[in-house]
């Protein structure tokens, strides 16, 4: 016993002298956490498929389904000279400027597929005939598909990306292990958000690029506004994802909650068909959903060229979701 102690005593002094304790390393914890998070995501082929490839396949599939004839010039009627002038720049549109009554007749008789009128606050109102397949197809493609899918993708990738990773780390006690280090806890959560925003760029560019190239989807608003909308949308959904995963200990529990939260929005928020089709009573609720707000704002930006002031209500709704969900999530978050 005494022998052992004396040996260890001697070695101890040597060891301490040999390895100075301050071999500083330049890695910043937030950078490391974010890099690790990105690597974990990129090394998961299934997640890559669902986030990057699936939305494009869906867009392509729906696009083909609703496009029962090859792309051709679309006849539209316009009631204001200003609009007519701007719409004439679009190659695929045959723009006819008519009086309001003549335009209505033209639409009903199927002479034109779409009637465009100036609305309140510089917005644009579209009229089309439900029974005219060409009109519906045009509207599906131009107005609905790409912004709707973009919104859906922002929601899915944020909620799944955040939720599964957090619950998995908690289940494997990896989170508990990290909490046992000096890691600043806000960095852990921040790394999820940073990695999400970086992936967002790839995600949006891919889907939007596909929409523009394959379906000539217009992006009439400013690209900066468009990017800000995507970022705000993604942050709101990240907050929601964080809240959903703030306490769950099993993947099953988390995934049930995620479906519970997302399913109503997939149905009601106007991804595939207009939210206007739901009864008026539920309209205020539908409009308060974050996915509705994102999709409406993206549509206004892309199709009507709306600026951020014009989508003020949507921005307010998204910000409210973001703040409330983050606040609650931080309060409820279970670190082990």
């Amino acid at each position, binding site marked *: 016993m005494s022998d052992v102690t004396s040996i260890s005593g001697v070695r101890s002094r040597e060891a301490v002298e040999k390895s100075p304790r301050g*071999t500083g390393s330049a890695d910043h914890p937030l950078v490391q956490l974010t890099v690790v998070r990105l690597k974990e995501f990129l090394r998961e082929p299934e997640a890559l498929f669902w986030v990057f490839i699936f939305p494009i396949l869906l867009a392509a599939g729906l696009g083909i389904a609703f496009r029962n004839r090859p792309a051709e010039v679309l006849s539209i009627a316009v009631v204001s000279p200003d609009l007519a002038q701007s719409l004439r720049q679009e190659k695929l549109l045959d723009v006819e400027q008519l009086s309001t009554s003549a335009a209505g007749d033209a639409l009903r008789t199927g002479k034109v597929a779409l009637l465009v009128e100036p609305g309140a606050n510089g917005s644009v109102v579209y009229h089309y005939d439900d029974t005219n397949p060409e009109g519906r197809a045009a509207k599906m493609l131009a107005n609905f598909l790409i912004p709707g899918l973009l919104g859906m993708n922002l929601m899915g990738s944020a909620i799944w990306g955040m939720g599964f990773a957090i619950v998995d780390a908690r289940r494997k006690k990896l989170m508990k292990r990290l909490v046992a280090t000096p890691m600043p806890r806000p960095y852990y959560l921040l790394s999820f958000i940073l990695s999400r925003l970086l992936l967002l760029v790839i995600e949006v560019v891919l889907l939007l690029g596909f929409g523009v190239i394959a379906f000539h989807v217009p992006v009439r608003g400013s690209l900066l506004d468009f990017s800000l909308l995507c970022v705000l949308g993604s942050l709101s959904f990240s907050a929601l994802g964080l809240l959903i995963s703030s306490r769950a200990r099993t993947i099953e529990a988390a995934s049930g909650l995620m479906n519970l939260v997302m399913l109503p929005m997939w149905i009601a928020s106007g991804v595939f068909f207009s939210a206007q089709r739901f009864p008026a009573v539920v309209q205020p609720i539908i409009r308060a959903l974050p996915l509705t707000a994102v999709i409406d704002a993206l549509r206004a930006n892309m199709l009507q060229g709306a600026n951020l002031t014009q989508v003020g209500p949507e921005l307010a709704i998204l910000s409210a979701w973001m703040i409330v969900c983050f606040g609650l999530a931080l309060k409820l978050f279970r670190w082990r």
Partner: protein
Amino acid sequence: MPKQGPRDALRLCNLRKAYKDVVALDGLDLDVQFGECFGLLGPNGAGKTTTIEICEGLTSADSGEVEVLGLHWNSDAAQLRQRLGIQLQDTQLSDKLTVTETIRLFRSFYRQGPSPAEIIAMMQLEEKRKSRVSSLSGGQKQRLALACALVGDPDLLFLDEPTTGLDPQARRQLWDLIEEFKLAGRTILITTHYMEEAERLCDRVAIMDHGRKIALGTPQELIASIGIEHMVEFSAGGAAKKLDESALRGIEGIGDIHSENGTVQMQVTELHRAVPALLDELRRQGIPLTELRTHSASLEDVFVTLTGRHLRDE
């Protein structure tokens, strides 16, 4: 790391903790000195993990005092986190990261410590440094977990059952690594239910049962305290006659005798006298011996003597 200030690396005083209706700790006192490797021994459910997690600041005690490196969790948490090395019982590190990536991540949380490459070399993981965690063996995973506990060059290292589930070779390799850290003069608190592990690594051990400390001392002291030097175990299978145990009790140096399913266990002080006498007696009774084993008394025997149960009964 003797420093001026705190006398002990760890001081627990009258610690109590209950989970719902289960009492995990029932008034535990413990002192761990600087530079020693202290073992917490006991069966599952004895309160070892609760104790170590309270020391690690991951669980709070219902009552009692906890002083770690002379500091307290409620006022000095940030400082403590920098100075402690922690290995939890069942953490699964991220499968999709490589060994180097995992260590770099953990290293980034500490202000000081060896570089990731140094730690990898120290833990003998060089060949695996580019491998994903999912491809590591059990022993390699445990070495990686130990590496993550050592990246901050800790003054005090907590190891919660570091070798559970490993094969004997991997276990011995890990013991060597822990011993190196110990030889550098650092303090270790280790929980285990492997007696061998405690006897090999620990300067002192506390034996725990039902949330209390039932014995404390060096392994040698504890073994000596039960007054048994050796255990002799024999089977007399297929004997026509029943063994007359009372005749064995008369033999010099034989203490308690237990018999169970045809196996007889005896505590023996002087092996060289007792065994020949035992053989003579069995021959006299006409009982054939089918098996005879002896071993020196171990911490396991200490636990059995103190509680009447085996450590790994559960």
